[in-house]
């Protein structure tokens, strides 16, 4: 049982404050949907939790099981159990999905931290990576389970992938890295109905009692497939309302124009 806690978080770029006091607590086993209009700062929140160097923290804290993670590098946060599925996954030409994932998994599972000895001492590639055989078996199983074509292993990471292929690969990565908390940034956007089903099935499979999800989405439709425990409305850098799944339906009905009217200029967060 873990808890990810965002406390009165304020952050931005240069002089521009984008996050204006975000409060949110996510427990293991919980699915929390965060909905809000474009430009309200949802991705910024996701990036700041993952440790993107571009953003400055002006105040507040982010705690994982009571410990602040603000001083941790992005790779350390990942190892601590935080995963971000990117809204726009980045292409890394020339690096195959398999090599990338083997390196990532080896880091996260501690293989790379082990001293090299025995016959691996002074060896070259793969000396302290997860053994190839084990890795190959695991990735093959996971690709099958999460509906990713086996040919992806050899393709270059996100290079020339369609929107849907990128999002599926993000889910595959999450499955391999098995985080405590996953932030899914618009994993549904730009997907056709089949891809949306695949991605949401993946999320449902991974939504076990040991894992918490923050589902960032602009639309209600993902929530037809993945049932949230809580839904929050995000507006102008903060959460303005939190409730159950009924909130999503209300938003669907009234649209974001209503949010704007209701909460524009609100000096303090309501929730």
């Amino acid at each position, binding site marked *: 049982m873990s808890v990810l806690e965002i406390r009165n978080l304020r952050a931005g770029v240069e002089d521009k404050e984008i996050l204006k006091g975000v409060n949110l607590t996510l427990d293991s086993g919980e699915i929390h949907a965060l909905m809000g209009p474009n430009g309200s700062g949802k991705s910024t929140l996701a990036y700041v939790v*993952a*440790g*993107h*160097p*571009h953003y400055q923290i002006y105040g507040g804290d982010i705690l994982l099981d009571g410990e602040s993670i603000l001083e941790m*590098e*992005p*790779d350390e*946060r*990942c*190892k601590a159990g935080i*995963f*971000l599925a*990117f809204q726009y*996954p*980045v*292409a*890394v*030409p*020339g*690096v*195959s999905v398999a*090599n*990338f994932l*083997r*390196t*990532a*998994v*080896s*880091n*996260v599972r501690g293989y*790379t931290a082990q*001293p*090299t000895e025995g016959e*691996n*001492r*002074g*060896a*070259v*590639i*793969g*000396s*302290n*990576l997860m053994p190839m055989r084990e890795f190959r078996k695991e990735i093959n199983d996971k690709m099958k389970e999460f509906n990713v074509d086996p040919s992806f292993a050899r393709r*270059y990471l996100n290079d020339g992938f369609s929107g849907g292929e990128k999002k599926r690969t993000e889910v595959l*990565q999450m499955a391999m*890295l098995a985080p405590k908390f996953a932030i899914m940034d618009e994993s549904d956007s730009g997907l056709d109905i089949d891809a949306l089903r695949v991605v949401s099935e993946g999320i449902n499979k991974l939504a076990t009692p040991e894992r918490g999800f923050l589902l960032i989405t602009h639309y209600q439709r993902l929530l037809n497939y993945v049932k949230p425990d809580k839904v929050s409305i995000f507006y102008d850098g903060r959460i303005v309302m939190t409730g159950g799944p009924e909130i999503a339906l209300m938003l669907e009905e009234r649209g974001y124009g209503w949010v704007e009217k209701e909460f524009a200029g609100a000096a303090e967060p309501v929730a």
Partner: protein
Amino acid sequence: MATHADREALKGVKDEYEYGFHDNEKPIFKTERGINHAVIDQISDQKNEPDWMREFRHQALDIFLSKPMPTWGADLSGIDFDEIFYYLKPSDGKGTSWDDVPEDIKRTFDRLGIPEAERKFLAGVGAQYDSEVIYHSLREEWERIGVIFLDMDSGLREHPEIVREYFATIIPASDNKFAALNSAVWSGGSFVYVPKGVHVDIPLQAYFRINAQNMGQFERTLIIVEEGASVHYVEGCTAPIYSSNSLHSAVVEIIIKKGARCRYTTIQNWSTDVYNLVTKRAVAYEGATMEWIDGNLGSKVTMKDPAVYMLGPKAHGEILSIAFAGHGQHQDAGGKVVHGAPYTSSKIVSKSISKDGGRASYRGLLRVGKGAHHSKSNVVCDALLLDERSRSDTYPYIEIEEDNVSVGHEASVSKIGEEQLFYLQSRGIGVDEAAAMIVGGFIEPLVKELPMEYAVEMNRLIQLQMEGTIG
């Protein structure tokens, strides 16, 4: 892809490398420093050469002395020709098996951490220690099918008629000042002859390095691929570090006859005080294919542009090069393709990485001569800069004397992306390793063309170069 995996393992190797160890060399014969006609005679005497070669050396020396230093390209003012030993012979006789290779030499190979190439390819490895090839082994199989793979000195001794027919016909001593110097003092290098229709399917490998302080290295390689034959020749070198400047100036000549193929792969990682000035040229006749694959790391200055002259219809030339320029280094590498017959095609792909103020230049020549109609050529050069202080520049020369041709040229310069780094980091990969991965990906299209152990080594060298680069 080199990853964190080998990094720890490499730390020790790197420390020693940077520290600059060298084994105690035990030369049996060494010329005095500097160069003159007496030195040439000493070299020729030592080698017991035919008169025509002695004469060739003397003439080349005159050409060398009469030619001014090149004024274009990299700064060569640090070379002091009077300080260099031009010939050194470390031991008598040649090893015919790995067991015959002296222990201290094996130890040096070991400490460089690059024993794979030898271990795996014991048969067919030619290793050069100082100016002399001391270890050479050729698979019996190849001997049986008439393939000759010898060090150049033995080649001259055992096959004088072939050597005399082709030697310096592709790169005459008068070609440039450094080709003249090599012609005057050459020693070692490889002689390869592949008879008509023979396909050598395991790469021929030469492995050599500089060991003596101030020791110049002047290998001379001659490869002849007869009609319809094919061969892949691989050369890799690395050198320990010394405080004074070393000069390496090789000449490689390749003749590929009708319908034959040759691929020549080089990975080199000279120590950062070496001037590496190489002249490499191949002629490809009708329907023949030449491929140069060239990885340049290390050295203070590297100047080389492998060339392919396509002299028969439908000949094809390809040059793939990777250059890595670190602190205080200038890699001036590129390629030359000369279309001298119709329906010929060529491709140049050049990738450079610069960091810590290093400079990488692409220097390319594409020439389509009169009569080379329906020729095609495509040139792509991509540069990756790892920081603001580093530099990359491009000098493409294009000369077209024929109308009906198709020519493409693309160049790009990019910086290592913050978004790529963050993405990889967010998957638990440390920043240095992430940067090395991105660089590895950048050169992957070329690395995948290398034989396995060399691909591994290339990635490992990149990994070493990348340590502590970012953040």
